[in-house]
């Protein structure tokens, strides 16, 4: 039976097409000149360039980390192009009517219509194509509420004080190898500011698309929720199907000031490579939030793509009574490798964190959960609960769990539960005896396993995530 399950999960990648778009692309290579040119293309102020150069110099002295449970050929950073933008974006289209229709078609094919009237009501989108933001929808409506939602390159020019105050405040320039690289060469991404006491009137989302060959995508997202505000944000990503590996090294910083709440959801579907492990995106991402007094940061992620995933969305629970949550589904198949998890750093009193991680491994893939729960000396009465479940499909895949617990406060409580289960022959037999084919059976069993996480996603996306998982598990049954 497990052979049939294997076949059932042989996947087809729907987002693997390439758009015929003329681009301005930097030749491969990285040095200070390249960074100056990126900064110039973006019309940046001097301080921003200086910040980038500092990060670059720090990066040069750093070593690529090798502690993760991942195996891949070392990346040649000189063979990557660090900037690519559709030619048509050069003159900065003022409205959607001026945007190259081919770009709009690309997003439509991906199920992301950019015309506001066609969109999901209640969801504003920032569409990032290679190194630039193509369009940000519903901006006027958001502005009425005082919410700023725009490409970060624009925010650097329009709101320099806000950006200057918060950029690098959560993930410092020299935090880690990939973050430092991102600081040096980031090209676009989204900036969000929710003013005091405002509940953002709609879901915000950014959709990242890598199109150009041999181009890295280095986006940067900064979300600041001022006191007592509330925002829900979603990120989605796809890339064409290519034989070469491509690098994606993003940084996301969240700042939740007193009594604020940020919910950050990711549906990641980068091209995972073929069944022999050729091609696919290397996804090295640093995501971190800082939670001030009584605030809450919640990360929800559904990770089905990428050849390699290295990602640990984290919360620094600095303020008393702050809350951190991490809900994750990571599916690996074929030769995919994922090393993902979270860090919950409890600094304030009575801080609480919840971790629910669901790892699904199929084929020859490897899926590791790596989580750190740290209770600082001041974290009186802090609590963490971690639940870490692995589901194995077939017998050639692997699941690993690496929980790290560091406690310097005896009053803090840390609980950890872990389970490993298999899609059993008995379950498959029951489903088939009730008339379901192997594909439907596997996808239903896997969806059931992920239910706790899916229910954390915004409604509009829970359905999409379920479908994505179904597509990921789709294939012909022999």
């Amino acid at each position, binding site marked *: *039976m497990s052979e049939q399950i294997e076949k059932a999960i042989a996947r087809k990648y729907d987002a693997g097409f390439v758009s015929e778009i003329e681009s301005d692309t930097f030749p491969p290579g990285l040095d200070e000149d390249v960074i100056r040119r990126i900064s110039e293309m973006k019309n940046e102020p001097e301080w921003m360039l200086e910040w980038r150069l500092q990060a670059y110099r720090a990066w040069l002295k750093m070593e690529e980390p090798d502690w993760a449970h991942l195996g891949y050929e070392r990346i040649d950073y000189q063979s990557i192009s660090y900037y690519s933008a559709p030619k048509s974006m050069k003159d900065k289209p003022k409205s959607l009517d001026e945007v190259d229709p081919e770009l709009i078609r690309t997003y439509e094919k991906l199920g992301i219509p950019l015309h506001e009237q066609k969109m999901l009501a209640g969801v504003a989108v920032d569409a990032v194509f290679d190194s630039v933001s193509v369009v940000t929808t519903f901006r006027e409506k958001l502005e009425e509420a005082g919410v700023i939602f725009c490409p970060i390159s624009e925010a650097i020019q329009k709101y320099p004080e806000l950006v200057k105050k918060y950029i690098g405040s959560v993930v410092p320039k020299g935090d880690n190898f990939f973050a430092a690289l991102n600081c040096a060469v980031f090209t676009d991404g989204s900036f969000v500011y929710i003013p005091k006491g405002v509940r953002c009137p709609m879901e915000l989302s950014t959709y990242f698309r890598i199109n150009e060959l041999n181009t890295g995508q280095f986006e940067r997202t900064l979300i600041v929720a001022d006191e007592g505000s509330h925002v829900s944000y979603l990120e989605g990503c796809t890339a064409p199907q290519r034989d070469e590996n491509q690098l994606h090294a993003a940084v996301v910083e969240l700042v939740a000031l007193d009594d604020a709440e940020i919910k950050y959801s990711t549906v990641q579907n980068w091209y995972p490579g073929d069944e022999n492990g050729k091609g696919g995106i290397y996804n090295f991402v640093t995501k971190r939030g800082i939670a001030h007094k009584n605030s809450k940061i919640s990360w929800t992620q559904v990770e089905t793509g990428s050849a390699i995933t290295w990602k640990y969305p984290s919360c620094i629970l600095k303020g008393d009574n702050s809350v951190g949550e991490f809900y994750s589904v990571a599916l690996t198949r074929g030769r995919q490798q994922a090393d993902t998890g979270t860090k919950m750093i409890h600094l304030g009193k009575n801080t609480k964190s919840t971790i629910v991680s669901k790892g699904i491994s199929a084929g020859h893939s490897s899926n590791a959960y790596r989580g750190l729960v740290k209770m600082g000396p001041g974290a009186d009465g802090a609590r963490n609960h971690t639940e870490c479940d692995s589901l194995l499909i077939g017998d050639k895949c692997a699941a690993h769990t690496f929980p790290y617990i560091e406690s310097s406060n005896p009053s803090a409580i840390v609980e950890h539960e872990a389970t490993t289960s298999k899609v*059993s*022959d*008995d*379950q498959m*037999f*029951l*489903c*088939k*005896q*009730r*008339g*379901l*084919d192997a594909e*439907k059976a596997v996808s*239903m*069993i896997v*969806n*059931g*396993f*992920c*239910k*706790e996480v899916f229910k954390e996603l915004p409604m509009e996306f829970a359905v999409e995530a379920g479908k994505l998982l179904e597509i990921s598990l789709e294939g012909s049954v022999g």
Partner: protein
Amino acid sequence: MMLTIKDLHARVEDKVILKGLNLEVKPGEVHAIMGPNGAGKSTLGYVMSGRDGYELVSGSIEMNGDDLMELEIEERAQKGLFLAFQYPVEIPGVSNMEFMKESVNAMRKARGEEALTAAEFLKMAKEACKQVNLPLDFLKRGVNEGFSGGEKKRNEIMQLILLKPALAILDESDSGLDIDALKVVADGVNSQRDGKRSFIVVTHYQRLLDFIEPDYVHILSDGVIVKSGGPELAKEVESTGYAWLGKPVESEEAGA
């Protein structure tokens, strides 16, 4: 003929379990299969439904003229073969409702019928749930997740009611049930008898047959049917046990 089994030999791994079994079931009939633990009763249901590892050695099984051995598990199911499991398995997180809706619609699709809408199905499911005397929240709970033994058995009967199979095999649907639950299961099955659909009721005890009256009773021992008769044969078994079969019998409490 609903079902024709001819000289069936079947094995599990290297062990031949069924050793020349013959059985004919006409539309509308209820056949009881009784026998000691290890006789091969569950094996018969598994071979018929196509479970992996249960292999045909020789002989044939036909249902409504189709050679079952030529069909995939789900195709047999779609043609109306239903197995109520002796030990129903859990599928955590998949709601009973979702599972049964997918199942009913898969069968409908195979017959070229339109899928039921969520509302249409909900109505049917609620009725079936009441009929087997399970609280309605069982529709929302994960398939068999945390159900007691008796609740699992009733859940199987709920599926039987929703799927309306042409031929249902009930594998010890009575084991582990108290008398009230037994009646619920029996009433559920009886409500489905319509003179066209057929049932094979596998049981260790005569008790269930007080409530589901069979047309025929067969005694299975060591992979062959050693005796067939009417309902009176079940009564005979009750008074004499299986000792007359001439081989040592395992404890009746084992319920294998």
